[in-house]
């Protein structure tokens, strides 16, 4: 297995740059709509068109969003935020420069916790998070002769999140991005949609011999459009670099693109063509000061974060890691679960309901939990019915739950009563059914007694039939056993 050894000699070093588009109403430096889509060139004004004489002004919501993300990623926040111009020519960049932050990013030196390959927790450092504006869109494939430009996106606010080169495998990159996406969604600052480009990722990748302290030459893969593809692109690029080095080539610093159908990365431009962006302080904007007061005010309105909930579910609720991760995967699910827990005594039961009946219903009809009609309070009442022994779990989940979906205004007890589903747990009444069932199959009684204990299910079935499903299975089971063992 010479091949395996060749790849195993190396370890990859990966850093990610993520651009998260803010879901603010207006753009970063003007009041134009920042909404996605729209008729091309309709979300514009002289300011976002970069017309002569126009000036930028800062969208304060973006500053707040950046502070939220900084707090969520344990960053140090910068007090004096200076904006800078990054100068380059491109047809979809109307001013000929992007207003960004250079030397004073609003957030610095934070981290995100992810799971590594062995399932252990690992911290990935966040070098910086800064505020900037998006460029417009150049559309090359709509017109056979011309490139079309849509400036709706020009000026839409972005946060750029730059990681330390702490990521050591494509899987870790996948987990890191998943975590970032979860965070921005929990904070409700970005919709996290990579296909629409509201979350974009560039990956810096190099390989070095295992144990080496000296990083190899890196390449950058730009604009990968899904988390899965980031993983694929990195997998390919690591392999490519190792093979190149092993065959005596040198890796050159270059920008590469990812071709999803073939799974390959392709060279786009080399360093010789790299830009000199001539950053300098933006003279049209005064620095933005982030005070301790602002930070503590924002701290007060921070929503619960996925890793906090995850820990709570494991340590306080004693759920499994698997359950905790499913429940915290999306904020609306977690919020539903949180609310449900306020109505029930056992969070485990609540978790089972959310991950069982509720999730499978949502999946089957492709409904988001935000649009789920049954309120947590009602599910809580249903759980209570089961716990009090008034209905069986199967009646609750298979009969009452579907009826609640069509009649969410009703309460579960009402439905159970209307349908005569309140179960029989009165021993005397049950004993009658049990005796009848046993009397029906004398030969099976003999089989049971000779050791075929599994036969008890047959008697249970008869009891349920006779009771029209209202028998409390636990009590019935106990009675059958008692009589048979006599």
């Amino acid at each position, binding site marked *: 297995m010479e091949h395996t050894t060749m790849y195993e000699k190396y370890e990859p070093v990966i850093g990610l740059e993520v651009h998260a588009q803010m879901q603010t109403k207006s753009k970063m430096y003007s009041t134009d709509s920042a909404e996605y889509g729209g008729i091309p060139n309709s979300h514009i004004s002289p300011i976002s068109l970069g017309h*002569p004489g126009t000036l930028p002004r*800062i969208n304060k919501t973006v500053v707040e969003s950046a502070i939220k993300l900084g707090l969520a990623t344990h960053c140090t926040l910068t007090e004096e935020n200076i904006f800078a111009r990054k*100068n380059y020519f491109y047809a979809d960049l109307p*001013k*000929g420069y992007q207003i960004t932050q250079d030397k004073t990013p609003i957030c610095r030196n934070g981290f995100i916790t992810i799971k590594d390959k062995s399932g252990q927790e690992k911290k990935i450092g966040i070098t910086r998070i800064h505020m900037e504006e998006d460029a417009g869109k150049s559309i090359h494939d709509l017109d056979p002769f011309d490139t079309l430009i849509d400036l709706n996106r020009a000026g839409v606010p972005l946060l750029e999140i730059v990681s330390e080169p702490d990521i050591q495998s494509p899987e870790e990159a996948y987990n890191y991005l998943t975590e970032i996406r979860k965070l921005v969604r929990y904070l409700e600052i970005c919709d996290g949609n990579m296909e629409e480009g509201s979350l974009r990722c560039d990956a810096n990748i190099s390989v070095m011999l295992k144990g080496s302290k000296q990083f190899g030459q890196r390449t950058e893969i730009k604009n990968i459009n899904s988390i899965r593809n980031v993983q694929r692109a990195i997998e390919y690029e690591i392999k490519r670099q190792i093979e190149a080095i092993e065959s005596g080539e040198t890796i050159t610093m270059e920008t590469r693109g990812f071709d999803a159908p073939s799974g390959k990365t392709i060279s786009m431009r080399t360093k010789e063509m790299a830009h000199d962006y001539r950053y300098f302080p933006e003279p049209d904007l005064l620095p933005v000061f982030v005070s301790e007061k602002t930070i503590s005010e924002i701290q007060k309105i921070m929503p619960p974060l996925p890793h906090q909930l995850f820990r709570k579910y494991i340590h306080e609720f004693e759920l499994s890691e698997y359950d905790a991760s499913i429940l915290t995967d999306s904020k609306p699910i977690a919020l539903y679960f949180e609310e449900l827990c306020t109505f029930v005594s056992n969070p485990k039961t609540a978790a089972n309901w959310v991950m069982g009946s509720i999730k499978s219903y949502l999946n089957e009809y492709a409904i988001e939990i935000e649009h789920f009609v049954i309120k947590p309070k009602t599910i809580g009442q249903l759980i209570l019915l089961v716990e009090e022994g008034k209905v069986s779990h199967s009646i609750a989940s298979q009969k009452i739950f579907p009826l609640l979906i069509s009649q969410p205004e009703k309460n579960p007890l009402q439905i159970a009563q209307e349908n005569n589903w309140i179960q029989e747990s009165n021993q005397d009444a049950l004993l009658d059914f049990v005796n009848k069932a046993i009397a029906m199959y004398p030969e099976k009684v003999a089989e049971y007694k000779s050791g075929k204990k599994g036969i008890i299910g047959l008697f249970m079935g008869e009891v349920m039939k006779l009771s029209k499903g209202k028998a409390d299975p636990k009590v019935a089971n106990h009675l059958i056993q008692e009589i048979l063992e006599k």
Partner: protein
Amino acid sequence: MKQYRSLAEIQTDLQSHAISVKQLVEAYLQRIEEKKHLNAFLEVFASEALKNAEQIDAKLAENKAGRLAGTVIGLKDNICYKGHKVSASSKILEGFESLYSATVVERLIAQDAIIIGRLNCDEFAMGSSNENSAFGNVLNPLNEKKVPGGSSGGSATAVAGGLCLATLGSDTGGSIRQPASFCGLVGLKPTYGRVSRYGLIAYASSFDQIGTFTYTIEDASLLLEIMAGKDEYDSTLSSEEVPEYSKALPFSKKAHIAYYKSYVEHEGLDPEIKKCFFEIIEKLKQQGHSVTAYDFPFLEYLVPAYYVLTTAEASSNLARYDGIHYGYRSKNATDLNTTYTKSRSEGFGPEVKRRIMLGTYVLSAGYYDAYYTQAQKVRRILRDKTNEVLSTNDFILLPTTPHTAFDIGQQVADPIKMYLEDIYTVQANLTGLPAISLPLGKHSNSMPFGLQLMGKSFCETEMFSFAKNLLHL
């Protein structure tokens, strides 16, 4: 019609019905036509101005007119006026019409000023003689062989030639005060952050300020009062209250005045200007004001620091003129790259190109610290040193220009010499302080020259007050 030199005169005549606004506009239009060869106006908004004049006459009849009723004003061609062309005297903005009005224009119109046209200037306000315009140079109405100064040359000529009552200019390094000096006018550059830059085509954003050309301090202060103050479209504006500048009275206290020895002893300063300067110093002393001379070892650094920083900003500010979105696009362009290179090479004039290249150079990797960072340091030191002098003095008095208006064509071949035209004016822009050039001298060559009063930050009221004293010495 008599040549009016102040709004007060006009408003008196309007009140006594000696004249109507319409007649006033007609007279100015006629005069513009007669003086067409001065090349001050790039475009005259004749029919529109007449229509507005009629409306203002109607308002006057009902006593509902604004404070600027009767003010006929011209705009430097780098100030945007909705629905009108604006070109910064450059070919690169060929055919461009502004979609919005500058904040200052809106505020003037709201007080019933009449905008009569747009005025020639150096391309993108880069120049000291108005010889860098894509639409030809402007003549000095006081001596047509001479330049009017620049970059707001058309604005100076229009007022000095009696083509309108007042004009707006922009001052990045002296572009209002220098032509005011050459044309015998009051030229005002307010404190940076006093007047909204929204709608002013940027040359160097941290230096540019809109200001005025007038005959009188009264008109300058009234116009400033109306234009100044908070504007949500310009975040660099100060929230400082706008005082009633127009009510500024002559300075009644004894003033503390500073001047710099190195400035007046500079070899480039015309001896007659120097003489006049000291005569004024003497008179001020006689009136009981205290005058202190300071050493100021930074004079040699001012112009270099100014040119490093302004060209850096300009190289970025002018990147938007790329032939893609609006304005001039080269017919010879074949792809994206040639659209940029050819449109910009053909669309910009030589001085603008020189400054873009200079600015690009000082910001580029490897040179940034040696030039840009260093110049920023000079700017900071200069600001501190100037404020230090102003902490114990009310004003600094200095020449506006080293000499009077020079001959057309005399200096075009020597950009460095042209840059030194700004030697006395850039300090106010580097420090952001307010300064006003006052027509205080007349040279034996029969051309006027100005002296400059520089005040404390946002202390325009005091500056106007003392300027009144100086004009009546």
